[in-house]
């Protein structure tokens, strides 16, 4: 019996990268999974993989910056899967630019996808969880929510916001038996990371090799992050709330 048997999880940005790895792992551990994403093809492919493995999954097309989409996605999850115990606010984008090269539109877009989506999804999920007697919210933050990074100012601002709203939400909703934590990955090998290389005009291979320069001498894998999310989603972490779990191969140790 898996550690998430009987649980229903909604994962934003679940069609690729870290979100996809979380969806696959949670399903293997017995959860029914709803994937909310703009990428319908990718999302449906993950659903198919889960169902081929004997699990239960569903996809909902969702623009996480739009309140009505978020509300609909939460309602859809509850109707399709029968409830919602685990919300993973994982959708995120990155723009590699300083304040000089970041347009207003890009700033607003990064803040909307990375921060406002968490506010919106949590706004609609918390009442569902509270009514059911409890739940778990996991936010994908970043090491760059704890320290600064070069040419990534909108991203750093957004991820710093994620880290501290996690703490604020933990204080607000502990009484409703809702635990709220975030994960701070380092460089993780995902389509988003490879797109970063392109944004910076760097050869992908060199970019990835640099990302492996950390104490554990390898780049992160989506599965590393998914395992941390599994710990936070399960009853094993039932006394853990308001924390930031760094999974980065030691990048922030020094």
């Amino acid at each position: 019996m898996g550690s998430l048997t009987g649980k229903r999880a909604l994962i934003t940005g679940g069609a690729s990268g870290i979100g996809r790895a979380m969806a696959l792992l949670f399903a293997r551990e017995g959860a029914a999974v709803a994937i909310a994403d703009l990428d319908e093809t990718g999302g449906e492919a993950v659903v198919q993989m889960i169902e081929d493995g004997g699990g239960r999954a569903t996809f909902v097309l969702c623009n996480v910056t739009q309140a009505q989409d978020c509300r609909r996605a939460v309602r859809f999850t509850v109707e399709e899967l029968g409830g919602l115990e685990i919300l993973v606010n994982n959708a995120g984008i990155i723009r590699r630019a300083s304040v000089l090269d970041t347009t207003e539109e890009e700033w607003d877009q990064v803040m909307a996808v990375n921060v406002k989506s968490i506010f919106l999804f949590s706004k609609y999920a918390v009442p569902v969880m509270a009514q059911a007697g409890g739940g778990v919210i996991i936010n994908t933050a970043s090491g760059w929510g704890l320290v600064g990074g070069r040419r990534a100012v909108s991203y750093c601002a957004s991820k710093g916001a994620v880290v501290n709203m996690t703490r604020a939400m933990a204080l607000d909703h502990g009484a409703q038996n809702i635990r709220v934590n975030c994960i701070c990955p380092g460089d993780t090998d995902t389509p988003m990371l490879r797109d970063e290389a392109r944004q910076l005009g760097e050869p992908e291979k060199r970019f990835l090799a640099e990302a492996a320069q950390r104490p554990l001498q390898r780049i992160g894998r989506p599965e590393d992050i998914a395992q941390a999310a599994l710990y936070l989603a399960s009853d094993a972490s039932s006394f853990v709330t308001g924390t930031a779990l760094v999974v980065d191969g030691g990048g922030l140790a020094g």
Partner: protein
Amino acid sequence: MRGLKGKRVLITGGAGGIGTATAARFLEEGAQVVVLDRDETALRRVERELPALSGCITADVSDAAAVGRAFEELDGLLGGLDVLINNAGISLRHRFLDIPPQEWRRVMAVNLDGVFFVAQQAARRMLAGEGGTILNMGSTNGLVGYHYYADYNASKAGVIELTRSMALELAPRVRVNAVCPGFILTPMQEAEYTPEEQRAFASKLPLDRLGRPEDVAALFAFLASDDASFITGQCLVIDGGEIAGGLASQP
């Protein structure tokens, strides 16, 4: 948890509440477990409670020579080491202005020197073998201030920083992390606080309950497992949300 079956585990302070719960958890995972403690009577009790233990060693971790001898005994029992739970520690409640020098020294000697002596011996063995993981016992007291425990708090802050430096130097074959519990209700704590005092403290926490030794044991099991193989140099807080806000400044 993946990767714990058959692993050789040493737990210092293994006769206390968290140590015993952790020993029980690792035994459930199929590991070979040795507990070390300075309290011989308590060790005998643990031996009776957990007959599957591979051994019990009596030693005071603040004594470098005693730690050396303890590890020689451990070599005989397990032939090597994969996981160290560096948990032995003491706390004394006193106002900063009243701390006698010998009490300051005693707290530092057990909580910081002891962690260092044991970790160094363990790390050498892990590097001579197939690597491993070291988990140091920190505390929320090492991250924020608290009244009446200035020496304990300083020692735990030292453990947390030592953890980071160890992680850098021992990577990639040895992972090192610190676990930072808040208020965990152990037999020692139950003896010290009345049920009313316990409830009063719990009601200040977002999760409205005190921690259990099993909660900390579960975090140790996760961090020691393959599922945490990309986590090093970190301190993981397990506190019911206590330090998420500014509560900790209350006496």
